[in-house]
């Protein structure tokens, strides 16, 4: 039989049992629509997740490791945290351990400090000085706009983050009359003037708060003053491109130098009785050889969550940008996998429906099959007749199912469906939630192909049964 003849006869057979064909197609339709809709939810989440990651410009390869907040107790006598015996601490040995872990590119301690800068007539009091090992900065993947990153041997050399310059203010200005240039308070699109050309302007720095008041007509009241003010020439060796918010506002310098300056600062503050500074410094202080923070950079963002989990098991806090988002998405994904499984079950039931319909058709047409065999139908002809019929049921079920899922997707995206409301956590995190369902063209194509294939597979055994029928027995059956 030619393909056309097979098709015509097939359609005729399908039309002869209109209701049965329709019901079988309906089963496939519902199954296909269910699975397509469920997958569309997952696709929408994925697409949103990707968009959010891109928007936030997150460097997801960087993990922050800290001591857990409840690991130790504050000792008011020692003025520092005290950890119980055996608590894992963030010391040099631990940094080396992190460094040796699989998929870790580098691990480096990271401390924070507070310094005072002057590039007359401007000054800056920066609480966001980052001390790192100078030799590892080149591996941090920070883009350089001008100059270079820190390297081994750098002492009073610093690298400015893209927005760190905005900390400079006119000497003598105080909090209320500052024209604030800090990025977080500036509306988007505002032109922000540059005060200091950090790469070229001569700059000095000090750990001593009195430094920023030297030479002012109306010095602010600062007690003490026995100790002379020490300051250093500082060389800005590099300026970074904007990358992530953390690096943008910070000033990088060698960890050893910063540790020294921090200690000197605390000593001076005590001597000059700068009460406010003393309190502030105390809460920042850590026991010796216990870094406030260690940064761990993984080789690829695929490993981030896995490495973070390993570090958590070692007894530390490990955070990375977008972690909460990641966990939310992981939760959603799990939920959607469950839904997809339900969709798959309905498709399996539809496949059983097709097989049942086809077996009924074989029974019903036993005599016809016999007649056709006797008057010269080849086995292939019989097989093609049945396979095509089941494949068509699958295909049309898939086609209508895709249409139904498009309608369903439209409803989900445009009407308020109670159980589809976005997780309130997302809104709390300030994440905009897009359409809950995304039906892509390839998903439609795949669904069609899959439904057709399921039809074909379901028809295989009934078709085999039809070809195996003895012509003589079949022709005698009623």
């Amino acid at each position, binding site marked *: 039989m030619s393909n056309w*003849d097979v098709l015509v006869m097939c359609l005729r057979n399908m039309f002869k049992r209109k209701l049965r064909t329709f019901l079988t197609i309906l089963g496939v339709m519902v199954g296909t629509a269910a699975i397509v809709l469920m997958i569309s939810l997952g696709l929408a989440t994925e697409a949103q997740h990707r968009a959010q990651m891109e928007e936030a410009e997150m460097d997801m390869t960087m993990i922050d490791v800290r001591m857990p907040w409840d690991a130790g107790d504050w000792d008011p006598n020692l003025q520092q945290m005290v950890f119980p015996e055996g608590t894992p601490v963030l010391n040099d040995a631990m940094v080396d351990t992190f460094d040796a872990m699989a998929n870790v590119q580098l691990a480096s301690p990271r401390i924070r400090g507070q310094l005072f800068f002057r590039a007359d007539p401007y000054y800056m009091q920066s609480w966001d000085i980052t001390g790192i090992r100078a030799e590892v900065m080149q591996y941090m993947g920070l883009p350089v706009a001008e100059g270079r990153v820190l390297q081994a041997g750098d002492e009073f050399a610093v690298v400015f983050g893209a927005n760190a310059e905005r900390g400079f203010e006119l000497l003598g200005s105080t909090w209320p009359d500052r024209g604030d240039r800090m990025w977080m308070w500036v509306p988007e699109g505002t032109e922000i003037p540059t005060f200091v050309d950090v790469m070229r302007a001569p700059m000095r720095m000090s750990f001593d708060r009195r430094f920023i008041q030297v030479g002012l007509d109306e010095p602010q009241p600062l007690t003490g003053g026995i100790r002379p003010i020490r300051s250093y020439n500082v060389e800005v060796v590099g300026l970074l491109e904007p990358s992530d918010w953390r690096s943008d506002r910070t000033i990088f310098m060698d960890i050893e130098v910063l540790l020294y300056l921090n200690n000197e600062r605390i000593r001076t503050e005590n001597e000059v009785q700068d009460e406010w500074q003393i309190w502030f410094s105390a809460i920042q202080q850590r026991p010796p050889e216990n870094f406030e923070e260690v940064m761990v950079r993984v080789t690829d963002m695929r490993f981030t969550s896995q490495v973070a989990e390993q570090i958590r098991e070692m007894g530390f806090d490990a955070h990375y940008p977008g972690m909460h988002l990641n966990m939310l998405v992981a939760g959603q994904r799990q939920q959607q996998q469950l839904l997809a499984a339900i969709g798959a079950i309905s498709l399996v039931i539809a496949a059983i429906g097709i097989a049942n319909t086809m077996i009924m058709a074989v029974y019903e047409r036993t005599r*016809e099959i016999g007649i056709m065999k006797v008057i010269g139908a*080849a*086995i292939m002809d019989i097989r093609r007749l049945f396979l095509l019929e089941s494949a068509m049921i699958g295909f049309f079920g898939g086609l209508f199912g895709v249409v139904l899922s498009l309608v369903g997707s439209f409803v989900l995206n445009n009407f308020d469906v109670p159980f589809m409301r976005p997780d309130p956590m997302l809104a709390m995190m300030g994440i905009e939630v897009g359409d809950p369902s995304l039906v892509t063209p390839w998903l439609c194509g795949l669904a069609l192909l899959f439904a057709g294939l399921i039809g074909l597979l379901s028809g295989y055994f009934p078709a085999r049964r039809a070809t195996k029928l003895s012509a003589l027995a079949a022709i005698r059956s009623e």
Partner: protein
Amino acid sequence: MGEERIVALEDVSLTFEKGKIYCLLGTSGSGKSTLLNMLAGLEKPTKGSIIFMGKQLEKLNETQLALYRQRYVGFVFQSYNLLPTLTALENVTLPLTFRKVKKRERIKKAKVMLKAVGLAHRWRHKPSELSGGQQQRVSIARAFINDPQVVFADEPTGNLDTRTTFEMMDLIIGIARERQQTLVIVTHDTEIAQYADQVIRIKDGSVESILEQRATMPGEAVIDEPEPTNMNHETGTGGTENETIVYG
């Protein structure tokens, strides 16, 4: 039951010549139908062989047997065996459809065939809309459409009344003679046997006798029975549409 060995045919040796009309005559259960099925390649003998145009039928596989039936064999059944979903025309074209003959060509051939069996005006009708006689005419047209080497007719008139029986026999014999096709008729009716060149009597699975005779030509047969008044199969308005089909 299943263990009991039933011998349907034994020690049968027959030769069929091209262009002659044969009649396998025997009572019910004599094995004549089994013989026919074997000749048609629907059943295989446990022993012995059936040679058609130099080939042993019992050695062919399903695909080859399908080809054999498609190319060389035509069938007329007692119960017509038309496909109920197809029209008379489509039923007649079916063997050509299986041979992948082009649609226009097969319709042309089928119309010629339908005209030959006197059903030119009813080609659009489904089998359920035709009388028994008309259905058998369609079936005859179908059997002859692909110019088979041999046509097998299994009790072709078993479901028909006497008058129609003779009409049908005249029709089959007429076409077979005209085309010089081999025809093998299975029947238990001695009157039908008159039409054959050779009557082969089968009894208990063996050939009882082979009788060469001068065959009755179409139209020569004498109808004994009085003409029925309430049936008119020619136009199909009579009431024998839903006949009970009894096989074998």
